[in-house]
């Protein structure tokens, strides 16, 4: 069949070529074209895909240059994205307005354009002339009726591109365009994913510094495809209390991650301001409804008081916490909740004081950890409870649930987990303190907690604490000079009595006056036996108190 075309003069030396579909590309070139839809291409990342396409097109047509410009829709410009033989186009970030110049006309008219003599044509891009290109042929890249860019080839020697060449280039464009579009979308998604992961990482500390009285561990895992709005947080509050937070903003991607950042900050600020957990969530809910964007999120907050052995818990539409006893028995705690954050505003958020004694642990998590298609939420929680049983501590608990519940290829939804444990109180208390007055308060706190855990009755707790604090005060006052030393406290319960030893490396000083002697009198009255042993290595005060039986 004879090639037919209806050349149309565009002026300025440009000829628009409307391809008659009956014109076929030569068989050998057609065979080569198959390589353009090679499945291997779809595996390439965006930039490499474009490069590979251009190399193949250049070889196919025997041209010197090839370039792809993509549409910047917002600015209605073509941007050079890949080039062979005229790499400067990309390096210099050439932009061509739609409707102007060679590529601009192709984009506007959506037709192939052939330029026989570049010197006498309307060419906007000076690089084409500078490179000494004589003839050009270009076609639009179209996907499902939408223009996405322009593909053009050039020759350094004058060349008349015929309809066969056009047919080849047109076919190449038709084959390449969908792949380009797919790769570009993936690239955009990939970039957003990277940004969101970065944002998430910057907001979620991978580990926490040591906190007196509790141990905390946490994990975050983005979903297989994208990050979401899950978060955890740990907040140090007054009186040795620690706030532990879990939250989940509905949705995915950068938007959800950014919203998560706002809610996390608001919650942290209200908690630090001293509000109780329920009130904190109420304020965050109010904050959420004040935002322009629509917010749908759940969150839970537990304020752990290691001394009292409690966790004050409040939840706005979040999943039930799991409590793990000191001997590793886990159970889900179902308590009344407030509605999710940002849903319709709530007046009150119920608060619950849950027991969290020494060695006991609480686990908070998001639905990504447990949700499985076709499995009821309660059955999923039972699986979680089973998977955490026997956990030794927060780190162990996180390890166990991530290992047992998260699929090998990554979770379908993002996952956040945080576990907090009220530190187990050892059978024997060993403390080393700097010998200065401010050491006395934390010493008493540690001793009280230990005595409480040893089930020593209140009267004896108070009196033993006074006696030990007095002995330590004496050490601090007398045992050292200006150079501050340290002292140790060793306490244990044995045979129905508590024995406490206070040891320092200084010399025992007998009380000097009536007032200062009062400390020793207190010790002697509070304890059943007091023994002071001093030698060249230092002084040890040993105190014993019988416990009622």
């Amino acid at each position, binding site marked *: 069949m004879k090639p037919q075309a209806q050349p149309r003069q565009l002026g300025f030396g440009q000829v628009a070529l409307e391809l008659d579909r009956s014109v076929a590309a030569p068989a050998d070139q057609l065979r080569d074209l198959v390589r353009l839809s090679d499945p291997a291409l779809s595996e390439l990342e965006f930039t490499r895909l474009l490069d590979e396409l251009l190399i193949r097109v250049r070889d196919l047509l025997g041209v010197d240059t090839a370039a792809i410009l993509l549409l910047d829709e917002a600015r209605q410009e073509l941007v050079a994205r890949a080039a062979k033989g005229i790499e400067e186009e990309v390096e210099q970030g050439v932009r061509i307005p739609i409707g102007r110049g060679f590529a601009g006309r192709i984009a506007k008219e959506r037709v192939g354009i052939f330029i026989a003599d570049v010197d006498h044509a309307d060419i906007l891009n000076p690089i084409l002339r500078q490179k000494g290109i004589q003839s050009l042929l270009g076609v639009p890249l179209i996907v499902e009726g939408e223009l996405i860019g322009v593909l053009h080839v050039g020759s350094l020697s004058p060349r008349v591109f015929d309809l066969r060449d056009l047919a080849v280039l047109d076919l190449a464009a038709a084959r390449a365009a969908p792949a380009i579009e797919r790769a570009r979308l993936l690239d955009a998604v990939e970039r957003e994913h990277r940004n969101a992961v970065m944002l998430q990482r910057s907001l979620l500390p991978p580990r926490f510094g040591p906190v007196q009285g509790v141990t905390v561990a946490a994990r975050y895992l983005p979903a297989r495809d994208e990050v979401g709005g899950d978060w955890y947080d740990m907040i140090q509050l007054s009186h040795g209390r620690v706030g532990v937070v879990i939250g989940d903003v509905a949705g995915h991607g950068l938007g959800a991650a950014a919203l998560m950042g706002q809610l996390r900050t608001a919650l942290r600020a209200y908690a630090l301001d001293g509000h109780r957990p329920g009130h904190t969530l109420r304020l965050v809910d109010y904050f959420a409804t004040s935002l322009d964007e629509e917010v749908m999120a759940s969150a839970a907050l537990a304020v752990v008081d290691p001394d009292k052995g409690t966790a004050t818990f409040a939840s706005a539409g979040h999943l039930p916490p799991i409590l793990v006893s000191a001997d590793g028995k886990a159970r889900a705690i179902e308590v009344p909740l407030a509605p999710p954050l940002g849903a319709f505003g709530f007046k009150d958020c119920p608060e619950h004081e849950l027991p969290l004694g020494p060695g006991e642990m609480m686990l908070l998590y998001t639905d990504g950890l447990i949700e499985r298609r076709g499995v009821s939420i309660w059955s999923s929680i039972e699986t979680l409870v089973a998977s955490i049983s026997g956990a030794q501590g927060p780190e162990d608990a996180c390890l166990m649930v991530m290992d047992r519940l998260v699929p090998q290829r990554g979770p379908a939804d993002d996952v956040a987990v945080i576990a907090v444990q009220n530190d187990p109180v050892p059978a024997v208390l060993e403390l080393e303190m700097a010998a200065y007055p401010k050491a006395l308060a934390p010493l008493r706190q540690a001793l009280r907690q230990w005595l409480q855990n040893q089930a020593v009755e209140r009267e004896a707790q108070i009196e033993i604490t006074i006696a030990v604090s007095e002995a330590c005060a004496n050490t601090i006052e007398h045992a050292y000079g200006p150079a501050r030393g340290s002292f140790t406290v060793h306490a244990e319960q044995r045979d129905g009595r508590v024995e406490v030893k206070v040891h320092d490396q200084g010399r025992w000083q007998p009380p000097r006056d009536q007032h200062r002697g009062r400390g020793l*009198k207190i010790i002697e009255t509070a304890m059943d036996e007091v023994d002071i042993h001093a030698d060249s290595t230092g002084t040890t005060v040993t105190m014993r108190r019988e416990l009622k039986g």
Partner: protein
Amino acid sequence: MPLASLNVHRQGDIVYAEVHGDIDMSNAADLRQELSRMTPNDALGLVVDLRDVTYLDSAGIRLLYHLREDLRTGRQKLRLVIADGSAVTHTLVLAGLDWGAEIVNTVDAAREGMDR
């Protein structure tokens, strides 16, 4: 976090001071100074409310003795308000401190005793 906090107000001739928190050797001297300073010479006396004191040691008892001496030089009276069975009571008992009528368990009782 300070170990203890102090609220002082004056009503008529009497200065009332409420102490919250722990009193030990780290803050007793400062507390004594502050309480003396807050009791001007024209006041009849000082009522120290120790019901919210969670811990008191021998340094605290020393503070109370010194405070009483400070006030006596100005012919002013001191009353301590202490809750029965509290940590403070324990220390007073252990230290054998018995001030009789100077120790009461309500602020009203402290005020009434001041006039005598």
